[in-house]
C-alpha cells in the first residue's frame, strides 16, 4: 500500500501503513493459538482494554432460533415446520456445535452459516444464547432504542439521550473530538444511535468515492467559514463533518488519476456487494488507517421475517456469515485488539405463523468474534423450550441480560456504558 500524495501533504506519518494505534500484535495469516485452552475449563475474564469493538446490529429482530438451535429438542420440532427449523438430519442439516451449554441437546448452526461454524471450531467465535432485553417489549423501535442507549427499562428512555458506545468511549458531551482522530464510525447514512453524544463520531457508509467535501478547496473554505457562524446543530454537524471527512479522506490511498484506490483486502478476504460486506469492508479500511478507531456500528437490515422466512433468512445468514468471515480474515493481524459482537433487538416467536414466517419474540442470541474471544463455546443458561419455560408462554426466555455481554467486552468502568448495571461476566473473553 503506497502513501498517497495527499497523505504526505497532510503529514499523516503512519497513514496507509496499516498500523493501528501502535499496538500491532501477530502477523498476517498466523494465528496465535497460545490461548486455545480446553473449552471445558472456565477461562479467566478479560476486557477489550484499548482495543476496537465492532457492533453488528441485525435490524428487524433476527430469528436466532433458526440460526443456532437445539435441533433435536422435541419442543422445538413440535413448534416449527421443517422450513423454519435448524434440522438435525437430511440434506439441509445444520452444522453440529460442540458445546456445554446444554450437553444433552444437539445444538446446530444454520447450514448457510458454515463460515461461522469454522470460526467456532477455530475458537474465535462464542455464542451467547437466550440473551436479550429483560423488558417485555416486542416493539422493534422500543427494543432498538433501549439497546442502543444501553438501558433496560422504558422509563429510562426519556432521561438517557446518549448511546452506550458514546458513554463507553467517554466523551459524553457535544465536543468535536480530537483533531484528525475518528474514535467511532457508523456505517449507516444516519448517525448511529449508540454513538449519540460522542464528538468526533462519523457516519460513513462508504469510502470508495472518497470523502472530501464536494466543490474542491473553494467550497471547503466557504463551508468552513459558514460553519463557524454559530453553534447550532447544523453548524456543529458541519464542523464535525468537515474535520472528520478530511481526516479520513486524507488517509485514503489514491491512484495517479486522483481516484480512491480499490481496497486491497488481506488474507484472501472477499467482501461481497451486500450491506454487511460493504459495511465491514469500510470498517476494516478505517481500522487500518491509524485514525484512532475504537468502535464501529454496523447495521444489517432484513431480519423481520414475518412471511416466507426460509429463503430470505438463508440468504441473510449466508451474506452475514461470509461478510464476518471476510472481515476476520482481512483483519487477522489485529485480532488481539479487535472484537465483533453481533446482536439484534429481539428473537422471534418459537411457533411459526401461517405465513411461513415468525412474529416478534423475546430471547435471542449474541455472537462474539475475535482473537480475544474464548471461542468454540456456547455461553449463558439455556432455559428450555417447553411451554412453561417460555417467556409469557410463547417466546424463548431471556436468561442473560444483553448488557452482561457488552459490559464484559468494554470492561471497567462498565458503569459508564451501562449505568446502574451490575452483572457477573460470562467469560466471553480470555483473560
Amino acid at each position, binding site marked *: 500500500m503506497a502513501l498517497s500524495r495527499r497523505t504526505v501533504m497532510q503529514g499523516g506519518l503512519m497513514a496507509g501503513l496499516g498500523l493501528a494505534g501502535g499496538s500491532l500484535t501477530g502477523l498476517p495469516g498466523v494465528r496465535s493459538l497460545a490461548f486455545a485452552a480446553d473449552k471445558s475449563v472456565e477461562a479467566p475474564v478479560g476486557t477489550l482494554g484499548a482495543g476496537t469493538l465492532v457492533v453488528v446490529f441485525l*435490524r428487524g429482530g433476527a430469528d436466532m432460533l433458526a440460526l443456532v438451535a437445539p435441533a433435536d429438542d422435541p419442543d422445538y420440532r413440535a413448534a416449527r415446520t421443517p422450513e423454519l427449523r435448524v434440522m438435525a438430519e437430511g440434506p439441509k442439516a445444520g452444522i453440529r456445535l460442540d458445546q456445554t451449554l446444554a450437553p444433552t441437546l444437539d445444538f446446530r448452526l444454520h447450514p448457510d452459516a458454515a463460515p461461522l461454524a469454522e470460526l467456532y471450531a477455530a475458537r474465535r467465535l462464542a455464542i451467547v444464547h437466550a440473551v436479550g432485553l429483560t*423488558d*417485555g*417489549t*416486542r*416493539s*422493534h*423501535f*422500543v427494543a432498538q432504542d433501549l439497546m442502543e442507549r444501553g438501558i433496560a*427499562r422504558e422509563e429510562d428512555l426519556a432521561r438517557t439521550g446518549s448511546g452506550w458506545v458514546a458513554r463507553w468511549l467517554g466523551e459524553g458531551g457535544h465536543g468535536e473530538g480530537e483533531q484528525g482522530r475518528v474514535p467511532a464510525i*457508523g456505517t*449507516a*447514512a*444516519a*448517525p448511529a444511535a449508540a454513538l*449519540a453524544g460522542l464528538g468526533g463520531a*462519523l*457516519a*460513513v457508509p*462508504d469510502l470508495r468515492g472518497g*470523502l472530501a*467535501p*464536494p*466543490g474542491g478547496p*473553494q*467550497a471547503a*473554505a*466557504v*463551508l*468552513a*467559514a*459558514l*460553519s*463557524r*457562524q*454559530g453553534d*447550532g*446543530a*447544523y*453548524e456543529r*454537524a*458541519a464542523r*464535525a*463533518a468537515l474535520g472528520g*471527512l478530511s481526516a479520513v479522506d486524507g488517509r485514503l490511498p489514491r491512484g495517479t488519476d486522483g481516484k480512491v484506490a480499490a481496497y486491497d483486502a488481506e488474507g484472501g478476504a472477499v467482501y461481497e456487494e451486500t450491506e454487511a460486506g460493504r459495511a465491514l469492508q469500510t470498517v476494516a479500511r478505517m481500522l487500518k488507517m491509524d485514525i484512532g478507531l475504537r468502535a464501529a456500528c454496523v447495521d444489517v*437490515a*432484513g431480519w*423481520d421475517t*414475518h*412471511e*416466507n422466512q426460509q429463503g430470505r433468512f438463508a440468504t441473510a445468514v449466508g451474506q452475514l456469515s461470509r461478510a464476518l468471515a471476510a472481515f476476520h480474515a482481512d483483519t487477522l493481524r489485529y485480532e488481539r485488539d479487535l472484537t465483533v459482537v453481533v446482536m439484534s433487538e429481539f428473537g422471534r416467536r418459537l*411457533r*411459526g*405463523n*401461517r*405465513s411461513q*414466517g415468525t*412474529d*416478534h419474540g423475546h430471547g435471542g442470541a449474541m455472537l462474539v468474534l475475535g482473537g480475544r474471544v474464548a471461542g468454540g463455546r456456547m455461553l449463558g443458561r439455556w432455559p428450555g423450550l417447553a411451554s412453561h419455560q417460555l417467556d*409469557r408462554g410463547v417466546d424463548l426466555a431471556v436468561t442473560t441480560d444483553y448488557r452482561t455481554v457488552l459490559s464484559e467486552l468494554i470492561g471497567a468502568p462498565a458503569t459508564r456504558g451501562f449505568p446502574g448495571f451490575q452483572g457477573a461476566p460470562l467469560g466471553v473473553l480470555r483473560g
Partner: protein
Amino acid sequence: MGGTMTIPPAVVFGRLAFGPRAAEPDADSGRPDWLARWLDRQLSPDLSSDGRDDPEVERHLAAAKLRIRYPAGDGWEAVDEDRPLACLGQPIEALWPLAANRPAVAGPERQRPRLETAAATLIRAVHSRWQLREVLVDFWHNHFNVNAAGEPAVAAALPVYDRDVIRRHALGNFRAFLEAVATSSAMQVYLNNRSSRAGAANENYARELFELHGLGRDAYLNALYNRWRDVPGALRGAPDGYIDQDVYEAARAFTGWTLEDGAGLGGDARLPVTGRFTYVEGWHDTYQKRVLGREFDPFQSPMDDGRRVLDLVADHPATARNLCTALCRRLVADDPPAGLVALAARGWTESRSKPDQIARVVRAIALSPDFARIRDAKVKRPLELVASFARGAGIDLVPTNALLGELDGSGQRLFGWPAPVGHPDRMEAWLGAAAMRRRWSLLLGLAENRWETGAIDLAARFPAPLPAAAAADRWQGMLHGGEPEPTTTAAILAGMGLAADAMLMPGTKAGDDRLRRIAAFVAMAPRFNQR
C-alpha cells in the same frame, strides 16, 4: 389569533410549503389575515374531479421522461429509451404483472413504478400550487410507510397507493384513511396481511397499526402488564394503551383481508391475479375476540371484525396524541410543545367524524401562537432541500435518473425506507458526516446543473454586472425570502477569495460560474438548511 400577523411568509413557506418561490402567487402577505386566507385555499385545493393537479404540474408530468436501460434477458428484449411516466395513471391490475415471476420481468421494469412516483413527487414539490398538500403527502407517506425498494409487489402497488390512498386522504378523515391504507395493495404486501390466516395469524400489520399508524409506542404497555384486564381502564372498555394480547387479537380480526394474488383457495380454486384487495371468508378467524377491552362476538359479517379494530384505533385518545405529536413534529419542531400537541389533539378528537378532520387540525396548528413563535427548529430533509433550492433559485426543475440517484444516496430514498417507521423526522438523523457531504453535493449539483435538471436562469435574475457582495445578498433574498446576513456574505466572499466590490459579469463564463456557486454556497449556510 395573536401571533400570526408577525410570521413572514417565507417562514411559513419553509414549513407549510417546499420553501418560498419567487413570485409566489398566494402570498398576499400585506393583509393581516393572509395566513388564514392562504390556509383556506391550500386546505381545499381546487382539484378537478379526477384528482388531477394544477396545469403546471400536469405539464411537467406529461413532459417528464426517465431513462430505462437493460440488456436482453430470459424472456425480454434489450431496452434503452427515455420513457414517459407511464405507470402513474394505471390501475393496480395493469401494474401487478410487474410483481409476477412468470412471465419474467427485467429488474429495472420492477423498480420503474417507484422511480416514476419519486419523479412525480419532485415535480409536485417544486411546481405544485398546492404546496401544503404536498407537504402533507410527504408526511403521510412516511407515517404509513411502505418500502417500494424491497419487494417488487410493493413497487408495483406504489403508484396506486400514492394516488388513491395517500393523496386522496391526505387532508381528509383519519378513520377513512386508515381503512384505505389497510385495504391497499401496497400495505397488504408490505406488512404481510395478505398471507395471514386463521390459526396462527401474521401479526405484522396489527402490531404496526397500533404502534405506528395509530396509538403509538407510548401507549404500548407490554412491559407493565401481562394480561389485558390489568391495563388501567380495560375493564370499562377504555384501556390506557395496548399490550401484546391486543396485537394477537387484532391480527385475528384482520385474517381474510388479502389481495387477489393468485393464492390457492383449496382444491383447484385460486384467487384471480389482479393485485386488488379482496376478502376471503374461509381464511378469517371467525370466533370471538377481545381488542382494547371490547368484546367482539363470534361470526360477524364480512370484514366487520377488522373495521371495528380500525374504529377503536381511530377513536383512541392515544391515537390523537400520537398523530398530533407527529404532525407538530413535521410542521413545527422536533420536540413540539406539549400545549401545542394538546391543542391539536383536542381538535383531532372534536372533528373525528368530519370529512376534513386532518385539514382542520393542520389549520389549528398553523394558526397557533406556538407556530408563530418557534423558528428554525427543524433541519430540512434532502427532498425539502432540493425542492426549496429549485423553488428559490428559480430552476424549472425536470427530474432525471441522475438526480433521483443522488437523492437515494442522500439517505432519503423516497418510498424506500426499509422499516415501517418511515424516514426519521428528527434533525440528528440528517446531520451525519457523510449525509452533510451529500447535502452539499446536492446543492452544488443543482446549481451547476450537473444532472441536467434545469439551469438557473441567471440572465433574468442578474441583468447587469454587480459587486460580489450584492450578488450574495441578492441570492439570500431569493433563497430565504428575507434580509441577507452579513456573516453569510462575508463567509462566502472570503472562501471564494472575492473582494466585496469585485464586479461579477453575468453572461460571461467566469461571471456565471461564480453566480451559480454563490447560489449553492448561500444554500449551504445554516439558515437555508433549517426551517
